[in-house]
């Protein structure tokens, strides 16, 4: 019998070494601590925080969440503790965890984005930054910058000048051509691109003749969006040189590995963590098992290895 070789699961994302390609998606994993009872936080590749802003944000009125077949809509509205409370209340816990922390952040203006990048740059526990230019649920910040290549480039240029840490930009799928957005961000200095954020959607209560969400529209996520996400990752991977983080409906190891074939260096687990708080760890373990079964000794060999 052939001895089982333990496959190499490590990848490097814009200079950040990850023990495996599994990250947690912003807004689905709190600030890490919430999941400590369900996940060994040192078993996953990286954690991405809830989107942070200069000031705490209240978020949208309720209902903020509704389930749809194979997915869910959310319109949280970027509720977060703000950067001050992040530093004083959340970072001390993260300091003790040997897993890279990526801070997701946003601003209402380009100056606010740059100030956030500068503030996050000063926090040693933050390994990298993820710029959110793609939240569909707020009027200012987020999607305003994420649907116009010129605005996106301005945000990325300003953030690039404000930090030396790896800078990743999270792209919106709510555009005609995601490749145009991806190239604009790459040219402006992004070290990596993560995609996709949620798709704008809505749900209606027929009897009440009203939208279900207080915000009327919300961001659609979950397994139902995976084919769209895979297609976009594949398109962007062919067009840019920077590494890509695949996001969108990843529920299991097979989904995750498909994203790697399409060109992702790492992946983020989002909605799946709501259903199974231990999903990220399980996916990382199952990916390794899949590689063993298929006699693949390095997960990196799958990146962009799709045969067309």
């Amino acid at each position, binding site marked *: 019998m052939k001895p089982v070789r333990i496959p190499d699961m490590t990848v490097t994302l814009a200079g950040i070494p990850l023990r495996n390609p599994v990250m947690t998606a912003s*807004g*689905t994993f709190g600030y890490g601590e919430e999941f400590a009872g369900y996940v060994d936080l040192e078993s996953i590749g990286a954690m991405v925080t809830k989107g942070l802003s200069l000031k705490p944000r*209240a978020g949208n009125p309720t209902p903020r*969440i509704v389930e749809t077949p194979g997915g*869910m809509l*959310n319109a*949280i509205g970027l509720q977060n503790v703000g950067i001050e409370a992040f530093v004083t209340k959340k970072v001390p816990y993260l300091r003790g965890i040997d897993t890279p922390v990526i801070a997701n952040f946003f601003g209402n203006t380009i100056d606010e984005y740059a100030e956030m990048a500068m503030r996050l740059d000063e926090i040693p526990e933050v390994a990298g930054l993820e710029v959110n230019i793609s939240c569909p649920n707020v009027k200012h910040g987020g999607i305003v910058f994420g649907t116009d290549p010129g605005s996106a480039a301005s945000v990325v240029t300003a953030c690039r000048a404000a930090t030396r840490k790896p800078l990743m930009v999270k792209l919106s799928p709510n555009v005609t051509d995601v490749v145009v957005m991806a190239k604009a961000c790459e040219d402006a200095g992004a070290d990596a691109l993560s995609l996709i954020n949620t798709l704008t959607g809505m749900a209606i209560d027929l009897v009440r003749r009203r939208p279900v969400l207080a915000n009327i529209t919300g961001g659609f996520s979950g397994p139902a969006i995976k084919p769209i996400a895979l297609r976009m990752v594949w398109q962007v991977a062919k067009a840019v040189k920077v590494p890509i983080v695949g996001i969108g409906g990843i529920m299991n190891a097979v989904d995750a590995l498909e994203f790697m074939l399409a060109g992702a260096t790492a992946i983020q687990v989002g909605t799946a963590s709501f259903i199974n708080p231990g999903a990220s760890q399980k996916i990382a373990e199952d990916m390794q098992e899949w590689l063993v079964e298929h006699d693949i000794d390095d997960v990196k060999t799958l990146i962009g290895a799709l045969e067309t």
Partner: protein
Amino acid sequence: MQFTSLIISNIEVSPGYWRMRMTAPQDFASAEPGQFVMVRVTGAIDPLLRRPFGIFDVGTYLPAQSGAVAQPYLEMLYRVVGKGTALLSTLHETDLLDLLGPLGKGFDLGTPGEEKLIVGGGVGLAPLYLLAKELVKNSKVRLFAGGRTRDDILCITEFERLGVECYTATEDGSLGECGLVTEALWRRLDQLQGGASVYACGPHGMLNAVAGIAAARGIPCQVSLEGYMACGVGACLGCVAPGHSHSQETPDFRCVCTEGPVFDAGELKWRD
């Protein structure tokens, strides 16, 4: 904790309302009244999200055969309202479910000896049975149960067996008084000698009224809220409720799943 549970029984106790008993881990016996579980009703992706249910009861079940090992169980009382609960009602004994729990912050049992007034609307009775079971150990307990019709008044016999004095009110008068259960609560408070505290779970309008009554009488009141939630562990921020000082400028949203579902009524913002 996350665990797999085996259904022991699943019975329709009133039209549209079901009571499910299922196995629980040993530690579950220490669940607090008011805590809840998140149940995955299917392994498939539709319905996708877990469903939150109040814990109706916990106990130990001893199978009839000799030498059998005592098995801790939990019970849920639920109403069929949509796809998830409809699916749940089709399950049978020995079917398996994936659960998270016990989750959230439960009821504070208050001062022993003082009268306890429990107010439940419809399926809002679900987390109040375990509460009553604890409270009767030290206090006189009265239950005020309300609903639209008599079909919405659940498990009153179980409460009576605990020694709880029960008052019922229905909007159509088909059981107990005709009208709102809060009227019966007012009357009892008028007769009250000495301290008391109020516990409530039910539709938001009822909680709003109960919180107002308790505040007017200066009586401590705890309410258990419902919320649309995806995760149950404080991450999705879907289930928040506005705290008493909440405004757009000074946000004060509380997570129903981790800071609740039980709150002191004074912590929350109510309609006047």
